[in-house]
């Protein structure tokens, strides 16, 4: 193989001279982290709400939440992204649509990406929250109501806290997924980690170094997430339950 390895390329200055290729890559990493964390926060909030709605006695609310899941789970992520970024601004009332288009281009890309990843992931979080709630014995709800708690109080203090403790492992997977899925947002021009990797190839003609560096950064990122979630899992353990180590 006649490939000329050159890891030093990372530390070389970019054509405009004000920074290095490594700095480009790190700014991509920063964008990936910001995008994923904000989308994750959104997915947790919306997903929990929808997950609860899926289990409430009111049939219409439960159906509404079920429809929500089907919409966001059954359309490819890439297509959803294009709809949020290209189609929706045109369909919005002119005031809103123009407002969006007058934002800084990076802000437009970031906003569309965050909303897209947030809703997409929320549908998956929703299903896990639902599964968690439904795995609790029926008596838990009865016991909460029998004490005089209202239905919302029963959810807030009894069902949801326990359900979340049970679903930490699958939530960890979703949290890791959101970092990986964020790479899709490079297709609308958002300069996150994967996009910076490709840009590096274009500028330096050193594809292996670029993509290996990108790969290592993703691995590192998700290793940190995993370690963090392991701590969460430890703290969420309920004494006396299977796997609690007690």
């Amino acid at each position, binding site marked *: 193989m006649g490939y000329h390895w050159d890891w030093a390329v990372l530390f070389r200055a970019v054509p405009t001279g004000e920074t290095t290729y490594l700095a480009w890559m790190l700014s991509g990493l920063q964008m990936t982290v910001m995008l994923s964390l904000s989308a994750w926060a959104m997915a947790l909030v919306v997903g929990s709400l929808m997950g609860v709605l899926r289990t409430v006695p009111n049939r219409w609310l439960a159906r509404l939440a079920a429809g929500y899941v089907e919409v966001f789970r059954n359309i490819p992520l890439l297509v959803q992204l294009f709809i949020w970024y290209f189609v929706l601004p045109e369909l919005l009332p002119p005031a809103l649509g123009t407002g969006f288009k007058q934002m800084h281009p990076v802000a437009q890309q970031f906003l569309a990406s965050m909303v897209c990843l947030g809703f997409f992931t929320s549908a998956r979080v929703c299903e896990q929250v639902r599964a968690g709630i439904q795995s609790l*014995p029926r*008596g*838990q709800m*009865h*016991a*909460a*109501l*029998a*004490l*005089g*708690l*209202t239905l919302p*109080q029963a959810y807030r*203090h*009894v069902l949801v*806290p*326990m359900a979340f*403790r049970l679903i930490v492992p699958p939530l960890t997977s979703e949290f890791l997924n959101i970092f990986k899925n964020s790479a899709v947002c490079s297709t609308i021009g958002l300069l996150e980690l994967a996009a910076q990797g490709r840009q590096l190839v274009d500028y330096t003609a050193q594809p292996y170094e670029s993509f290996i560096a990108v790969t290592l950064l993703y691995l590192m990122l998700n290793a940190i997430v995993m370690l963090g979630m392991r701590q969460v899992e430890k703290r969420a353990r*309920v*004494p*006396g*339950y299977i796997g*609690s180590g*007690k």
Partner: protein
Amino acid sequence: MISIRRVSKFYGDFQVLADCSTEVKKGEVVVICGPSGSGKSTLIKCVNGLEPFQSGEIVVDDVSVGGPKTDLPKLRSRVGMVFQHFELFPHMTIAENLIIAQTRVLGRRPNEAMDKGLKLLERVGLTAHAEKYPGELSGGQQQRVAIARALSMNPICMLFDERTSALDPEMINEVLEVMVKLAQEGMTMMVVTHEMEFARKVARRVVFMDEGRIVEDARTEEFFGAPRSERAQQFLSKILHH
């Protein structure tokens, strides 16, 4: 205190309760027994509105349970209930289990609720376990905490659902002791149980159910001395020679 008048309940076509009527006066202990699937547990869950019913009426302390304007959470906060599987909240410590409803429903201050909780814990002999989690206690201990939790709301009456006590004999005794004491103090109680010893000792009346019907509703001495229905005779001979 509790009056159940001609209550019927259906799951689709299946009738779970058929025309059930009975009465529990203030300070009375009534035991409900009968084979599994006879609707005992469903009946007492109707009393605090956990199970809806299609016809008839249940009135607790002058409040109609099925009434359209009834504030069910408020009514339930005044009716204590202890469940077959205890149903303590597993992610809360025993102390937290005891204060959650006091603070959230009755609006008591946390330290006031804690005092009350600890007093009740002492009463059921579990002071040392306040900071443990339900999963770390035995079945009998959990059941006693469940009783203390219900009592923390100063209920006007108590409902016990103990169909098939999943407890070993020693534990049954520690739970029954607490319940006997409660009955002697004049608590109004409706108790679903197979513990005939308990029924004999503390119940004023025994209600015997079969296939959703109240087959027999008699004073305790009469029920054990000479049950009128053949079905109750069969049941008693089986359960007492066990």
